[in-house]
């Protein structure tokens, strides 16, 4: 069924057309229970062990709203600078699909709990782009399907499907942007930056871990093109469930190129959903999109309206944590680093580990150095995220402390870190097991220094003659002799002392 899709080059597409995007992000809340029943939301449970008559849609079952779910929705809305509805209802969105046992999704229709906000996002070069938020509303997740009989679990060619409803009913907040106009060639980058900023925000609010690879946060990318200078939007396509930041950018880029090819040929874009394929970075046709009226939305009769009092809303507002953009500018100033440096830290996913390492007692410069150096390299090599490395910020702080105390030098510290990553224990255990101590025994050091001077008479003479810089060669010799375990600064002091010169 795979057919090649005609594309025009990205540059040519942008030369003729102006992209307009709309992003819909679903966030699974981290509540203990589902949105409308008390079933657990814990991950990894056996299939169909976390269901009840409510989330299975059995006749006569009555839903009851999760208070924490509503509070989380308000928190998200406030953090997105939205207004919070004084009164709103849930609605039934009717359609048939096996992953939805009730045959309707409990959602919100024309009365979202939060509306009219914005989120400022930072692009790679530090420029800020304001994305307008249309609404954020409460709804519920669907069950999980397992497709049997087709190739590699794909729905196409499957003979039948198996449903696990543990996920059905887990609270979702859907956050919808207004049409994003004026991003031009940077539209895909804006899409990525928006989803990233939103993810940071959601995490900072503590309402979800928002791990995209686990489906806790998913993005639908709506995209259309219009010829330059035309105000009316073109027909859009909706690429569903794009599950990584990189994919969000690639999906937007691909659709710009695909739309442009269709339009250049005089064709029309079909309003449809499309599936994104991680392997090729392309999209393929899904189903033709229903009209909203086909969902036959109507107010949910089993749930009474939600009318958050202004007191409650203000209480929630006053308890909001420092938001990510504000926090980043504060940290950037505190650490005295450039915007580019901060961007690299963000891109590496190192911000939280660095902050946690500082909280554990390290100074900012060392914390940055280790996370952006040795640890970033290790994470890169093993293809893991920084915060998934087998070392904790507390352990990194301990390594930094050992260096500050002079018990380790940088080279030894690197070995300690590698040891911890290799599962050899805590930094102190690795130091013991590998015997990684700076040689501070003056006797042993002095002997090594004497040896180095005796072995390099020419260099020694130069130093005696005032060329202090030449001492580096002797320090190197001592470090080699002590297998890197000497304190280089102390070695240099000893050498200069022996040769009767003083620094500076």
């Amino acid at each position: 069924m795979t057919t090649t899709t005609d594309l025009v080059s990205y540059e040519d597409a942008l030369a003729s057309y102006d992209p307009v995007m709309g992003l819909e992000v679903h966030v699974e809340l981290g509540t203990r229970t589902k949105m409308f029943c008390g079933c657990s939301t814990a991950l990894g449970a056996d299939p169909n062990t976390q269901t009840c008559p409510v989330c299975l849609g059995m006749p006569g079952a009555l839903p009851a709203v999760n208070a924490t779910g509503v509070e989380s929705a308000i928190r998200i809305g406030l953090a997105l600078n939205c207004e919070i509805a004084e009164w709103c209802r849930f609605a039934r969105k009717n359609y048939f699909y096996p992953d939805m046992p009730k045959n309707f999704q409990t959602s919100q229709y024309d009365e979202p709990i939060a509306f009219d906000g914005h989120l400022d996002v930072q692009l790679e070069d530090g420029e800020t782009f304001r994305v307008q938020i249309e609404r954020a509303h409460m709804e519920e997740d669907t069950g999980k399907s397992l497709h049997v009989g087709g190739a590699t679990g794909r729905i196409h060619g499957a003979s039948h499907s198996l449903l696990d409803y543990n996920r059905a009913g887990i609270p979702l907040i859907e956050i919808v942007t207004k049409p994003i106009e004026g991003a031009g060639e940077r539209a895909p980058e804006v899409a990525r930056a928006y989803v990233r900023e939103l993810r940071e925000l959601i995490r900072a609010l503590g309402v979800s871990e928002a791990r995209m690879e686990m489906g806790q946060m998913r993005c639908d990318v709506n995209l259309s093109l219009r010829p330059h200078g035309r105000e009316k939007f073109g027909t859009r396509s909706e690429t569903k469930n794009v599950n990584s930041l990189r994919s969000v950018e690639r999906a937007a880029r691909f659709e710009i190129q695909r739309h442009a090819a269709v339009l250049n040929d005089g064709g029309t874009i079909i309003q449809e959903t499309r599936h994104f394929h991680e392997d090729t970075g392309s999209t393929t046709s899904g189903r033709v999109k229903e009209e909203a009226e086909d969902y036959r939305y109507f107010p949910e009769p089993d749930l009474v309206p939600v009318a958050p009092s202004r007191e409650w809303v203000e209480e929630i507002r006053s308890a909001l944590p420092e938001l990510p953009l504000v926090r980043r500018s504060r940290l950037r100033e505190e650490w005295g680093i450039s915007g580019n440096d901060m961007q690299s830290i963000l891109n590496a996913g190192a911000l939280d580990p660095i902050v946690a390492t500082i909280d554990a007692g390290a100074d900012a410069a060392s914390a940055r150095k280790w996370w952006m150096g040795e640890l970033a390299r290790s994470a890169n090599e093993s293809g893991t995220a920084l915060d998934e490395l087998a070392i904790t910020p507390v352990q990194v702080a301990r390594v930094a402390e050992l260096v500050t105390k002079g018990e380790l030098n940088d080279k030894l510290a690197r070995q300690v870190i590698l040891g911890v990553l290799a599962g050899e224990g805590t930094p102190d255990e690795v130091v013991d097991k590998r015997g990684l101590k700076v040689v501070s025994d003056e006797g042993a050091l002095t002997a090594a220094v004497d040896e180095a001077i005796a072995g390099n008479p020419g260099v020694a003479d130069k130093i005696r003659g005032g060329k202090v810089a030449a001492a580096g060669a002797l320090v190197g010799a001592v470090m080699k002799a002590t297998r890197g375990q000497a304190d280089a600064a102390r070695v240099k002091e000893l050498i200069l002392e022996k040769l009767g010169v003083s620094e500076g």
Partner: protein
Amino acid sequence: MPGITREEVAHLARLARLELKPEELEHFAGQLDDIIGAVARVSEVADQDVPPTSHPLPLTNVMRPDEVRPSLTPEQALSGAPAQEQQRFKVPQILGEE
């Protein structure tokens, strides 16, 4: 008068996954017309000062704390399933061949 067409009934039937015979389409078109006509009369008496009622009870903010309650066992959950496999509900092919 609303004037529900046969095509609209057929569309609704498809959305509701109901298989209707041609004569039923006619029949229901007339009935739906009557129902909508009757309901429409309500708006003749309800003025601006009468808000639409979706819930008969004057309640708002009925919420429960985020506390886990016991779920059904998988056996109970699956007891009404026409077919099951691997402790999951087994359903027919979702997408037709393309």
